[in-house]
């Protein structure tokens, strides 16, 4: 919205060649739009930017009584970053966080796209809509419930899958308690949960593709697969890149809630991520400063990833800004 507005404004000002400075004039001319923008900007300032002063407790000996400003500075100022980096588990935490995030991104990107393509190609619209609605359902389940379902299927002693394996003479597989399987289960259940929800935005993008392109393709004798490859996928390319960049911003999150519900002592070596560590350390020691320091560390890396990937995408002609 804002892009055409400003270019239009520029066009108009230069056409009149007024001696007035450009920006204030442009703002004044489009005051109604800016006025409409104001509540949104205010919301961000009040709730997103203003509270940011709190990050300074990452550098302080935060004390509840003294509050954010009066608490003394940590000595040295990087004390809590140091504590994080010097934890014997630092390397493992970082590796786990990166790997789980990477797998989720790698294996989680395609399924919603494929699903959206399948839905949009389905000829019986009623059936498609039914399947689509059904596929949203898991998104609204909490991880505790999903873990319950997973246990029913994958438990080593009582799970359905292991019963089948047992019937065919195989050895039961400890899906939920073995380091070999845990990450696959994590990524798999994550994809299952959000495949339908994630496809919504792709479906919307597919719906926005000019139908005349398909008509032209059909006239030229393109098969359905050809049309998907040459019309649909290029049509939603920008959306795919956009979602990927946005997801990169959360790269170090890796899904705290899911892992917290599902992990146990046996799988710590492959499952413990930065957030679960902060939760354990922070909760036990009321260490707000450490929590903030790690949060800041994660945000900084997330910011670099978003900026970097956008720069890369722009080079290929598809950046967000």
């Amino acid at each position: 919205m804002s892009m055409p507005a400003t270019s239009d404004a520029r066009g108009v000002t230069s056409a009149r060649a007024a001696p007035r400075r450009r920006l204030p004039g442009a703002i004044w001319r489009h005051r109604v739009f800016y006025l409409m923008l104001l509540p949104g900007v205010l919301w961000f300032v009040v709730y997103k930017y203003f509270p940011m002063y709190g990050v300074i407790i990452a550098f302080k000996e935060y004390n509840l009584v003294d509050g954010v400003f009066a608490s003394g500075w940590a000595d040295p100022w990087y004390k809590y970053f140091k504590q994080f980096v010097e934890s014997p588990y630092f390397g493992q935490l970082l590796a786990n966080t990166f790997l789980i995030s990477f797998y989720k991104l790698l294996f989680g990107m395609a399924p919603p796209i494929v699903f959206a393509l399948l839905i949009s190609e389905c000829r019986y619209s009623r059936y498609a809509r039914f399947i689509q609605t059904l596929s949203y359902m898991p998104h609204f389940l909490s991880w505790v419930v999903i873990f319950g379902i997973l246990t029913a299927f994958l438990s080593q002693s009582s799970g359905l899958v292991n019963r089948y394996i047992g019937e065919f003479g195989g050895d039961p597989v400890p899906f939920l308690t073995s380091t070999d399987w845990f990450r696959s289960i994590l990524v798999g259940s994550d994809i299952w949960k959000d495949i339908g929800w994630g496809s919504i935005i792709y479906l919307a993008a597919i719906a926005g593709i000019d139908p005349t392109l398909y008509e032209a393709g059909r006239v030229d004798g393109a098969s359905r697969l050809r049309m998907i490859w040459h019309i649909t996928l290029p049509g939603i390319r920008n959306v795919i890149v956009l979602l990927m960049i946005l997801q990169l911003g959360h790269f170090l999150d890796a899904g705290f809630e899911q892992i917290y519900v599902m992990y146990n002592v046996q799988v710590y070596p492959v499952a413990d991520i930065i957030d679960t560590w902060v939760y354990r350390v922070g909760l036990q020691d009321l260490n707000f400063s450490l929590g903030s320091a790690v949060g800041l560390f994660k945000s900084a890396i997330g910011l670099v990833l978003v900026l970097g990937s956008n720069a890369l995408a722009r080079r290929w002609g598809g950046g967000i800004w």
Partner: protein
Amino acid sequence: MNKKGIMTTMLASAMLAGALSACSGGNANSNNQGTPETSGGNAAEPVEISIMLQAAEPLPDNYFMIDELEERLGVKLDIQTYLPDDYTSKINTGLASDSATDIFFLSDRNMFNKLAKQGVLFDFDPYMDQLQPTVDFVGEDNLVKGQAAGKQYGIPQTARAYQYSLWARQDWLDALELAAPTDLEQFQEVLGAFRNDDPDGNGKKDTYGYSGRPNEALGPLFGAFGTTYPGYFYVKDGALVNSLYDPAMKDALAYIKGLFDADLIDPEMLGNTKLQHKDKAFQGQIGMLYFNWPNIAREDKIQEYKTVNPDAEWVQLDLPQGPGGQYAYYDDLGAATVAAFPKSVEKDPAKVEKLIELLNYVSSPEGSQLVMYGLEDVHYEIKDGEIVPVSDEAAVQEAAFTYLFQFTGRDEMVYLKSKFPNQEAAYTFANEMPLLPVYNSFVDNPEGYNAADASRYMEEELYKFLYGKRSLDEYDDFLNTLETTFGYKAYMDAAEQQLTELGILE
């Protein structure tokens, strides 16, 4: 606001004064101080008291107990309930933003210590005389659990009865013609029979000997060697010992490892974080369980496992006797839920007065009866001198929430007897389980010691030893890594110094 309001308040406080002096002659002192405050010049507005409670379910709207306490004490109550997960963070944010409730409850000793050190908790010391009825109720010896740095920062609740014990399938024992095990050798034999001799007679090897939660189930086995889970401090032969360094620890690990090696224990025990072990046991996969009686002995639970198998019969077993005696688990002497006030209430003496009155009231015979059972003839009746629930199901449901108001705890055995008359044998048995007294809650972590990392390492290595993924010969290497990489040496030194200062070693 209006005349009627003033009248009610004054009437209420007059009634309260009458009620209190009638039921507890000993604290006339505090009554005399309390009454003029409320019925005096500025008694128009009742004192407002906010309380934060931890509850799995929200309180019903307009709960009768709130009205009842408001009327009896002449206060205005603002009760906030939070889920256990949110509770701690709510306290923290409340204290940080100076908006904490007037009463809140802390069950984590470490957090209690931290808050006390930061100076955000109210110091009860100058008010202990007035709190005498409460002190009598929770017990003088108990008070140390609410102390930090020698000051009384919290009022500990009365101790709860221990609920756990060993449970076994009597029908399986009968089918295999086995007696209940009395020592470790028999214990292993019974587990072996449960695993290998097809106790359910279905021709498949699909049963396991033992299960429970990973942080509870091994208690009786460590206990038989006179020790407990790694990292706990206790006194043995007049010396302070950490279970990690107790020679009995290695013997215990070797024995438990034998059970794992023989595949007698639920292979997913480490994943039993909620009620998975109970479900498996009720489905007939487990022969012996370490768990709490409310999950097994209550009528609805019996119904639950009888539905799966009408022959199933779970009974409580005595602990196996080992070279170190018999202990079911450990009992952390410093751990208790304590009621605390924020320091900021100090500025309002009238409020402090009322808060103390409230604690004293729920500790008085009359008040504690109210918060244990509700109202007479509404929620309970007295038959032949015993308290029994009324037959009205809805009223019993309503009374189910009164426990939230037991701010200073309850007379546990009396309470259980009237609420669960049919489970008396089960809870008495569990409550008599011998527990190894440990002192960990009294230890304040030294600066720079990361307790979370160290406990993760201990836990992980413990299970590596038990599952045979690491040889027990490397036990000393394990201790060495713990001491150096994880800073356990500093913790040990600090703990020994602090515990000696506390006078635990006479």
